[in-house]
């Protein structure tokens, strides 16, 4: 392999001469400590290199070693349950609630010693091409790891044997179209910046998040993308951690880059203690964690790309994968610092002019994809969820603007709600989801025929409340008309009972849809009765101060079968007041 000589060092940017055959995006090892770096630009024989690790101690004259390959990930069994840094160097594993920090702290990413039970699916003589499954490994009880022919290769399987193998052992022989034979191993190495997909399908089923405000109002489709936007302290990380635990995905890739240092430790602890209710295994066994350090901003981009590439690999097996990035805005910050150093044209706020393009490397890679050919075709999805941490939660921030062009669901967290400890602090008026129309069929057939109508009614209340909120703030609730007061009251109830979810208390945090609906019906019924009573002239204060809301508040804690009783009680009391109101006239 060729090597070059360092000419200059300026922060994480190094220029080196003698690298005329360097390609953009190639991985290099820089200097005596062999720090990982990536080639950003080449001019004559001088390459500009971004060094990912701390560049202290580098000086001119030191060697730069070419690898000839672009920044890549290793894909094979052994990733689930693992914790890696942004360059996929293993940090350790979580097993049985205990952390086992990795000893060597470096490459290779995946253990070469560990043996896996490989079951051949293809047989000798089969004609296979990139993406076809040749065998499987039961990596964890819930995730079947399919070993696929790497993209770009096709031919006839000469031989293949089941058995115990390490990831680099030869499990079979492939005769390529040009007659050359090549060993098949479980391990494949793939560049992080792109992965082909055979056919894209539009998403049509929701990814159940276990968060009522998301599932009910702003759903995300399997294969969709969503951004979570809010100022610091509004519970973004907590919400993402809850999603990592409660999403109904087969595989979760969690990219923790640039957030709180303690946050990653909490996530790991939680995932390795909590059980996946659908499989009975720990949640960690379906999760891959990429932990980038904010102290090394250059690694952030690599962390995001590594994470999404691992996600795409599992997607191609036909799994439903969710990739969570906390946070995308730190990555955008890193891009800004970098583009400034490179002297690239800058757009709004000093961010690179191609910010949307960069961010599309994460959000744009979400999708529902069919892979494999013929009878082996499988449909998998990759859902991308990213958090944006912006000063004061400003939605006009250039990063927010770029992201809204890329995502289908946008969840805005609000600090006023967070101040009141209303979690998840999702603000209804600025959040949106473009997926609901595509998912309407699913909701009407799987949840409830009337669901879209219910949702519309809930929105109407919340929008009305927003309209009236100015008056309430300036003049008080007393100044509203009886109907409007009822509206504000109902909107309040909807938020309190349906959308507030305590992250810590167990029975509340992961709700089945039927229970949500029962609560919703109860509240809408209350509204219908009370509104009719108000029309008849009943005193609104009396209606509101009756303590009916107390019943609905309790219904939230009560078991579903008790709710019917509350509903009856409610009807009786309202009718009593309505009757009194009628008398008054």
């Amino acid at each position, binding site marked *: 392999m060729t090597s070059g000589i360092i*000419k200059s*060092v*300026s*922060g994480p940017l190094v220029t080196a001469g003698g690298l005329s055959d360097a390609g953009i995006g190639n991985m290099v090892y820089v200097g005596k400590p062999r720090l990982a770096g990536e080639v950003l630009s080449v001019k004559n024989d001088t390459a500009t290199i971004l060094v990912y690790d*701390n560049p*202290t*101690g*580098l*000086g*001119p004259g030191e060697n730069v070693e070419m690898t000839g390959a672009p920044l890549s990930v290793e894909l094979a069994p052994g990733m689930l349950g693992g*914790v890696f840094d942004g360059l996929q160097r293993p940090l*350790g594993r*979580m097993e049985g609630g205990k*952390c086992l*920090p990795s000893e060597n702290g470096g490459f290779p990413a995946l253990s070469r010693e560990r043996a896996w039970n490989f079951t051949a699916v293809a047989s000798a003589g089969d004609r296979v091409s990139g993406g076809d499954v040749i065998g499987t490994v039961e990596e964890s009880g819930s995730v079947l790891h399919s070993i696929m022919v790497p993209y770009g290769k096709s031919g006839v399987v000469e031989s293949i044997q089941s058995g115990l193998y390490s990831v680099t052992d030869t499990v079979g022989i492939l005769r390529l179209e040009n007659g050359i034979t090549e060993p098949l191993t479980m391990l494949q190495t793939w560049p992080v910046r792109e992965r082909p997909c055979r056919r894209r399908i539009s998403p049509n089923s929701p990814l159940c998040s276990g968060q009522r405000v998301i599932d009910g109002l702003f759903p995300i489709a399997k294969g969709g993308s969503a951004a979570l936007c809010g*100022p*610091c*302290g509004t519970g973004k*990380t907590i919400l993402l951690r809850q999603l990592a635990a409660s999403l109904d995905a087969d595989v979760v890739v969690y990219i923790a880059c*640039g957030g*709180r*240092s*303690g946050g*990653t*430790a*909490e996530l*790991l602890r939680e995932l390795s203690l909590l059980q996946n209710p659908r499989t009975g295994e720990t949640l960690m066994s379906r999760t891959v964690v990429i*932990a980038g*350090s*904010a*102290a*090394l*901003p250059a690694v952030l981009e690599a962390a995001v790309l590594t994470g999404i590439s691992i996600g795409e690999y599992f997607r191609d097996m036909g799994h439903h994968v969710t990739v969570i990035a906390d946070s995308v805005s730190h990555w955008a910050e890193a891009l800004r*610092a970098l583009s*400034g*150093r490179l002297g690239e044209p800058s757009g709004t706020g*000093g961010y690179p002019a191609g910010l949307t393009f960069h961010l599309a490397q994460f959000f744009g890679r979400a999708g529902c994809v069919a892979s494999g050919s013929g009878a082996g075709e499988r449909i998998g999805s990759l859902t991308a969820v990213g958090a944006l941490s*912006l*000063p004061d939660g400003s939605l006009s921030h250039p990063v927010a603007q770029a992201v809204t062009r890329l995502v289908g669901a946008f969840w805005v967290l609000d600090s006023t709600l*967070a*101040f*009141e*400890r*209303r979690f998840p602090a999702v603000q209804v008026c600025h959040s949106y989801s473009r997926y609901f129309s595509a998912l309407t069929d699913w909701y009407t057939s799987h949840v409830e025929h009337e669901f879209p109508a219910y949702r519309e009614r809930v929105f109407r209340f919340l929008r009305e409340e927003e309209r009236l909120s100015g008056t309430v703030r*300036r*003049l*008080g609730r*007393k*100044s509203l008309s009886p109907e409007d007061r009822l509206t504000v009251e109902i909107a309040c109830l909807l938020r309190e009972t349906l959308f507030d979810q*305590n*992250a*810590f*208390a*167990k029975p509340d945090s992961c709700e089945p849809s039927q229970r949500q609906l029962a609560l919703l019906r109860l509240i809408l019924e209350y509204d219908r009765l009370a509104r009719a009573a108000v029309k008849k002239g009943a005193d609104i204060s009396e209606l509101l*101060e009756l*303590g009916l*809301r*107390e019943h609905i*508040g309790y219904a939230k*804690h009560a078991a579903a079968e008790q709710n019917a009783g509350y509903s009856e009680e409610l009807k009786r009391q309202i009718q009593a007041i309505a009757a009194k109101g009628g008398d008054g006239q």
Partner: protein
Amino acid sequence: MIKEYRTIRQLSGTLLTVDRVTGVTCGELGELLLPDGGIRRCRIQEITGETAVVELLESSTGIHPSRCKIRFLGDPLRLAVSEDMLGRVFNGLGDPIDGAPAILPEAYRDIGAISINPIARDYPARPIRTGLSAVDGLTPLCLGQTLTICSSPGLPHGQLVSQIFRQATLADGDGERFAVVFAAVGVSFDEADFFLQELRRAGAAARTVSFLSPAGDPAGARATAFQMALTAAEYLAFERDMQVLVLLTDLAGYAEALGETNSVAGELPIRISSGFASLCERAGCRADRRGSITLLSLLTLPEDDRSSPVRELAGCAADGRLVLSQELHRAGIDPPVDALASRSHVTGWKSPLDGTQADRAAAVSQLLEAYATGWERRNLMHTLGEGALTQTELPFVHFADAFERRYIAQNSNEPRSSEQTERLGWELLSLLPRHELKRLTPEQLKRIPDGSQESALHSK
């Protein structure tokens, strides 16, 4: 033999350009030799070919570039560590400034950030009792946590911090050794001295290592003082098994110093986030060590400046923040902790919660929700009078007043036990009609004392 160069081409601000330099590396420490025998330290920022850009870490006054020599020492900036550091005061570069001789170093430590492997991190789970209801009850502080205290100039954050230092005890302490590392960057001498005095008053002076780099120091030294402090803390915590409490003041001064060094190097701003994060990533508990680093950092910005990126970044990097409010201060609430804006990501609780913890969590959540409601309604009442409020809204206003006067406000020499704080919370909830307490389950509502307490509360 160390080479000495006489090839300083340029000095502008604190940046030196040196020609024909060979065999040096980025980040290497150098010494500028003045004609009168004085030495000023500097550090290599950037090397292109044989030209090095060197940042002066000490004052640049009186330097004639053509008459000086410069030499490079082969290592990055390091701190001499040993247990003798305790009780001593150093400057931002790690030299003693308390008049006593240099310490006998046991080792030299690189001050560059090496963050704790997230896998090796232990979850902060041992609560520190500060005796302050606003902290213990609402935003608990745990061993190994990072907490940012957001304040404004003129607020009594100094008193609050020194109260925490005076009263802090471990709920489950078992004879561990404690140490304090204090670093002041970009503040006036008086402010730094106030903290030193307070530490002395708390009887902690002999267990304290201090690093002072006041506002008059060159940016380079100010930017290293916090790293020095964490290097010392790492040594004491992870090699000497001490529970170390680090106090950094002021993050705004640190951000300023980072901005200055960046801008002189001709780079774009803000790697402040990476600066803050690398400080916070060095604090914590480690599964394989007995000691820990608890990091308190103070950030003073004008209160209305909520959109400041510094505030955002400092808030994101830490495990919690305690916000002091101008408005409460004016209302005579001391300490003026804004309970709604403050929060802690670390609760010291296990999740899922057991029974009593769930009760406590629900009570806190209910207290804050009721306070938020009362706070809003009170503002309305102040503009429109009591008549604008409905009968259900009025009790919330009374509650908000009582909550501030009885729960948040606290005499500076009257620590409350966590049981007292908890009981106070339940008592305050009795001011509100039961059916308004929607965050509590019917069982939890039974823990609220009877209404007879109300009068007792009002009389106090």
